[in-house]
């Protein structure tokens, strides 16, 4: 570029800049949130039943993997809560060919990582690697997936460590509050169990872990999502076939049928002598993501207790100063889900705090949400959703949820549109179903000798011990 051009551009630029007059007293007007265009997916199935999803994204020389099985904690035997979690933690701690240290070193050698985690519904192997080392990554992935051996010394080390962690967790009131609200809401369904027990950890051994591995981690029970700077499609598929093709198909048991208790208010007080605080959960059975109530309920929950502008936060924390934390959560599962409003208050204000929670829940039933508030919450949810898609890991996690939960392929692309479509009347309708004080249960963890009589004002109370 020659000098004259530079000067000319400078003049034009100066003119356009000086033309900009703005009104600083108001936030700037902006256009609508842009629609999100999902990168295109290629889907296929191997002969052994393994479903494969490929997504190309060449911006960074990385590849991200999710290998998701329907093998979450809901399948744990009754006397073995924590089995799936233990298998996940130990999956990369040794195979027939490779001891734990060798797996760690070979992964670091290729700039890769592989770890597994178990949730209520799913068991997911997560991985990532520098794209140049993808073939070697699949060697290691195939080895841990097909041949994890759960070595004796690693199992012992895990049991010791997990027992210590559990003891520390059990000293927290929140642990008992979360456990108890799940058990009250989900009743006999295995979703009621969130954590292992010292006894179930003691019972773990190689045989149980190997049998979990052999029966549940099978190709026809899994979806493999590979996302990032992957080689051309045929080459990638050939790589996957060569490593995971020999993996044997096997029938997996069907998932437990939803069998949730009826919605009747229960009030449980978990006694924790000496507590100066009461840790509160007000909870209700909710719905899965494909249910027609899901999006209105998601919006309703966010108005009630999502983020620092929510009604619970503004009322319980900002206005009344009862608590530092006041929020609500919606946790959809493959079947049903859990709604819970959460706060921790000092014993003296337990009654007004519970009343405020009930009032906020009832207000969503009785009054239509004002349009400004509704628009803000819709922006909040849509913005957060789009932001979660910036990284390969963020998009891969969303895709694996869609596959695990059996949601339609359009789920992610239509997400923000479905948020935007929610109407005030729908919010009132779902609030009546899921936020009603008649049917929402209450769990409080605290000193029973101090707070029992207060709690009895809300109905019949069952007192339990923290154990």
């Amino acid at each position, binding site marked *: 570029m020659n000098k004259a051009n530079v000067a000319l551009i400078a003049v034009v630029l100066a003119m*356009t800049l000086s033309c900009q007059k703005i009104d600083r007293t108001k936030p700037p007007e*902006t256009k609508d949130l842009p629609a999100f265009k999902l990168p295109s997916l290629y889907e296929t199935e191997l002969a052994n039943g393994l479903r494969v999803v490929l997504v190309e994204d060449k911006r960074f020389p990385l590849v991200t993997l999710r290998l998701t099985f329907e093998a979450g904690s809901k399948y744990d035997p009754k006397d073995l809560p924590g089995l799936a979690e233990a298998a996940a933690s130990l999956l990369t701690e040794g195979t027939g060919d490779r001891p734990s240290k060798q797996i760690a070193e070979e992964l*670091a050698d290729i700039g890769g990582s592989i770890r597994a985690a178990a949730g209520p519904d799913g068991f997911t192997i997560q991985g990532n690697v520098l794209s140049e080392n993808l073939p070697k990554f699949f060697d290691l992935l195939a080895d841990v997936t097909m041949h994890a051996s759960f070595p004796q010394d690693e199992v012992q080390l895990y049991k010791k460590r997990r027992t210590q962690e559990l003891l520390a967790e059990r000293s927290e009131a929140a642990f008992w509050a979360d456990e108890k609200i799940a058990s009250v809401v989900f009743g006999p369904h295995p979703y009621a169990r969130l954590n292992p027990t010292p006894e179930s950890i003691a019972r773990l051994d190689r045989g149980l872990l190997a049998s979990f591995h052999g029966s549940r981690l099978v190709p026809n029970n899994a979806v493999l999502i590979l996302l990032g700077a992957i080689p051309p499609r045929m080459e990638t598929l050939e790589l996957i076939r060569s490593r995971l093709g020999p993996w044997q198909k096997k029938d997996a048991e069907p998932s437990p049928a939803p069998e949730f208790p009826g919605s009747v208010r229960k009030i449980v007080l978990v006694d924790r002598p000496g507590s100066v605080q009461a840790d509160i959960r007000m909870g209700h059975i909710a719905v899965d993501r494909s249910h027609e109530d899901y999006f209105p309920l998601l919006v309703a929950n966010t108005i009630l207790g999502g983020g620092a502008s929510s009604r619970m936060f503004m009322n319980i924390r900002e206005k009344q100063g009862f608590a530092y934390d006041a929020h609500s959560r919606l946790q959809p599962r493959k079947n049903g889900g859990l709604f819970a409003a959460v706060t921790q208050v000092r014993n003296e204000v337990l009654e007004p705090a519970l009343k405020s929670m009930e009032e906020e829940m009832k207000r969503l039933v009785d009054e239509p949400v004002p349009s400004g508030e509704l628009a803000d919450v819709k922006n909040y949810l849509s913005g957060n959703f789009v932001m979660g898609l910036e*990284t390969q890991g963020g998009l891969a996690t969303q895709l694996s949820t869609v596959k695990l939960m059996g949601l339609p392929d359009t789920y992610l692309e239509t997400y923000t549109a479905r948020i935007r479509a929610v109407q005030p009347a729908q919010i009132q309708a779902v609030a009546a179903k899921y936020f009603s004080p008649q049917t929402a249960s209450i769990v409080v963890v605290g000193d029973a000798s101090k707070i029992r009589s207060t709690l009895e004002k809300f109905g019949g109370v069952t007192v339990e011990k923290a154990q």
Partner: protein
Amino acid sequence: MLAASDIQIPFEKYTLKNGMRVILAPDNSVPVVTVYVIYGVGARSEEKGRTGFAHLFEHMMFQGSANVPKGQHFKFVESNGGNLNGSTHSDFTDYFQVLPSNKLAVGLWLESDRMRSLAITEENLANQKEAVKQERRLSFDNQPYATAIVDHWPQISFQNWQNSHSLIGSFEDLEAATVADVARFFKTYYAPNNAVLVLSGDIKSGEAKKLVETYFGDIPSQPQPKHPDLSEPETVKPRSEVYKDPLAQVPGVVIGFPGPARRSPDFYALAMLDVLLTGGDSSRFQQNLVKGKQSVIQYEANLGWPFASFRDYKEPGHYAMFLLYNPVFKGAEVVQHAQQELEKIQNQGVDERELNRVKTYFRASTVAQLQSSLSRASRLGQYELFDGDPGLINTEMASFLAVTADQIQAVARKYLVPERRFVLDIVPAPKTEKPKK
């Protein structure tokens, strides 16, 4: 195939007439934008009697400005689907909004309004003094290890008051802060010529430049602030102390050694040495101390720990680590275990295979972190503020990958020896006992 070291983050840098530096880093693949502002002031700029001031001031930045009513900053960002935060560091303070990209102007409006016209009032100050005290009670005074690490460790490991005073500050000093102090601090340090603005993500360069000029162009500049003398004495006297912590259930020990100058050859060698010791499951600490000796339960380590990482390390600082340890061991034994790992490097060096592993691990984690617009923005802003060269986001990888095994052995011998070592053993105390001051 593209090698990870070849990654290039495109960016453009220019300076407004008032001296504010601007960096634009477009990537239009996802409709998200980060607005990041970094100011060249941190806790080490504080004066005696005003500890905790930089952090108190950071709180004031969310209390409203001429056109943004009190308490509305959060609401404007949240209701537009974004998130935000600010944080105070030793040598800088930064603020960000991550927004859907159609809301770029909202982020610029908010940041420019508080840079131009922060609401510094008695009411806001009184209110934020309370908020900071509450934060201190919850996040420090009520958390195991926090008081020992934040208040006590700097006193052991530094001698110059600028470096050793508490970053979170004392209640007495917070109380003493006046509106005039706050106004002076604002004028001195929160001037456009002491700031870098970074926009990264879904932006169009021309449009972004116009908006930046519109919102920030006429904020007046101020005289360039002076920087305090941070130098530490040349000779290092080793120290070892025990802190009784009534909130700790499990003992932990802090070990640190004074480190080299930022971006010197020794700096790169120590950063690689840290990855070798503590990076990932194959690291020596994980394999030899957590699994082998089972003396360490959890660990963290870094150049600049606890207030920085090697990315925003600025001398004087330490290569320091924090090891939570198995109570059947004594603190001195755990220190010995860690020192033995350092001695192995000093005596036997590092083989090429392990060095290559460490470099590959480093490359992969660095590239992975660049995926979010916020981490690209903070990296660019910090490189500009510290080094005057945001291009390091693309070129600095080569300096890390050029480190040799000999250099790692040499820095282990030069820096990581007991004669230059500071130790703070944090042990559980009975609940009734007051923390030892």
